[in-house]
């Protein structure tokens, strides 16, 4: 009898769901609205004067956990500013092994490499999945995602003590009782915890503590 009643309840649930709108998104025809930070594929940017931002500093090539970025560059005189700087000879990014960790975007000091908001088109051969320099510059026309090196770094920088203290109101911790025995480290947000030794705080490639 229990089987019967519970079965009827289950039948009721499915009947209820017939009335709900289908949630399926028919992908190629309808494209789901992507969030601002949605990230896939890559693009290389040029600056306002139409000059390539990338100077071939190898930061992204070094940080990439999958080691899929390869580049070579030469130093030339810039036609715009007249200063000597690096120019890319070649740049490839192998999407077959990319894990979309966004580290290359984060480390780029010139905001040259950014990620796209639209996915990479599937290819028929593996070569289609390798982003060459030309493809990367073409991709710059497509909608870009929110993040670039500067913004990501800004977001992660430990807050400067003075302005942070002024801006941040201290919200009450949640209503839940706090176990008395447990020490609460750094309950106040104000003095930003800077465990990094002071010497490293300013240096650009942060050399952290070496015991």
């Amino acid at each position, binding site marked *: 009898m229990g089987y019967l009643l519970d*079965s009827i309840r*289950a*039948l009721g649930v499915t*009947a209820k*769901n*017939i009335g709900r709108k*289908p*949630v*399926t998104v028919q992908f190629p025809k309808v494209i789901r609205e992507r969030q601002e930070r949605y990230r896939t594929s890559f693009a290389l940017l040029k600056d306002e004067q139409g000059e390539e931002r990338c100077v071939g500093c190898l930061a992204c090539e070094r940080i990439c956990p999958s080691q899929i970025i390869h580049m070579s560059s030469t130093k030339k005189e810039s036609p715009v500013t007249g200063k000597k700087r690096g120019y890319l000879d070649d740049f490839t990014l192998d999407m077959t092994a990319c894990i979309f960790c966004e580290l290359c975007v984060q480390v780029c000091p010139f905001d040259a490499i950014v990620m796209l908001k639209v996915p990479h088109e599937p290819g028929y051969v593996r070569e289609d999945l390798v982003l060459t320099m030309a493809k990367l510059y073409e991709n710059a026309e497509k909608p870009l995602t929110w993040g670039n090196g500067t913004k990501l770094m800004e977001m992660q920088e430990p807050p400067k003590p003075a302005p942070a203290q002024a801006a941040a109101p201290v919200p009450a911790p949640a209503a839940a009782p706090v176990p008395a025995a447990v020490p609460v480290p750094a309950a106040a947000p104000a003095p930003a915890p800077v465990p990094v030794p002071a010497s490293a705080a300013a240096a650009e490639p942060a050399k952290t503590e070496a015991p």
Partner: protein
Amino acid sequence: MQGLLRGLVYGGLIITVLMTATAWGMWLERKLAARMQSRIGPNVVGKFGLLQPVADLMKLLQKEEIYPIGADRLLFDLAPFLVTTFAIATAAVVPFSAEAVGADLDVGLLWVLALGGLMVIPVWMAGWASNNKFALIGGMRAVAQSISYGVPLVLTSLVAVVFTGTMSLSGIVKFQIEHGWLALWPPGPGVVAFVLFYMALLAESNRIPFDIPEAESELVAGITTEYTGMKFGLLYVGEYVHTMVGSAIAAVIFLGGWDGPFHIASGLHWMVIKTVALFASVYWVRWSLLRFRSDQLMRLCWLYLVPVSLGLVVFAALWRHFVLR
């Protein structure tokens, strides 16, 4: 010769209609299941995906035939063919209306039950011949389940026979036109008999919650594991036809067949409506419930369904003797 001709024509007609109905029954099920799960279902091939069965057929026909190593080729080839044959043969005696009946046998109900019981042999053959352990377990489960649930199926149909005093399916309908549908009358036991018949039907046609022979989460795909192409298609179609015919028979025995308030084409439409409603409800149940374990299935059958249906038979005999005489 005339009888033969009539048989051929009606047989051809029934196969065509039944297969077509089954094909779009599958479409209906897929649409229904999709909506139950907040999906859209087939909508690419044709308007509302109505040509999906055709596309499926084309796909199945193009597929490679694969024989597993060590398979018993004779049985492997024969099984899907027999499944579909037996399923369709059952339909020969189903009265779709007062006129539309292939063979109005005296023993129509017996014929239906006999052929339904026969389904187990090709299913077992398919499981045995595949030379696959999952298929073999599926086949053995199918045999055990089919034999067990055959008992309540026969007993609940016997309730109808005792009430109506005839084994002819059209006779049963005619009795119901006079006295009222057996599912509603006599009040109480009639509904119980119908529910038991329905459950046994679910089990006989291997539908959730009694689909342990296929049990794709345990046995990969049960008896159909090694089948490809149109042979798989035939096994699949056989199951659907079985369900469709079973729904039609349930409609005939318990829901008054072609009986209904308005009569167009001598009540054929009522039969179609009832059959499709029962068919859809089988799939509603299928997409809503979880599955029993095989031993629970047996316990449910022998400890609950069989005694209750035996009691119903006794009740029917008493009712017939004291009330209906």
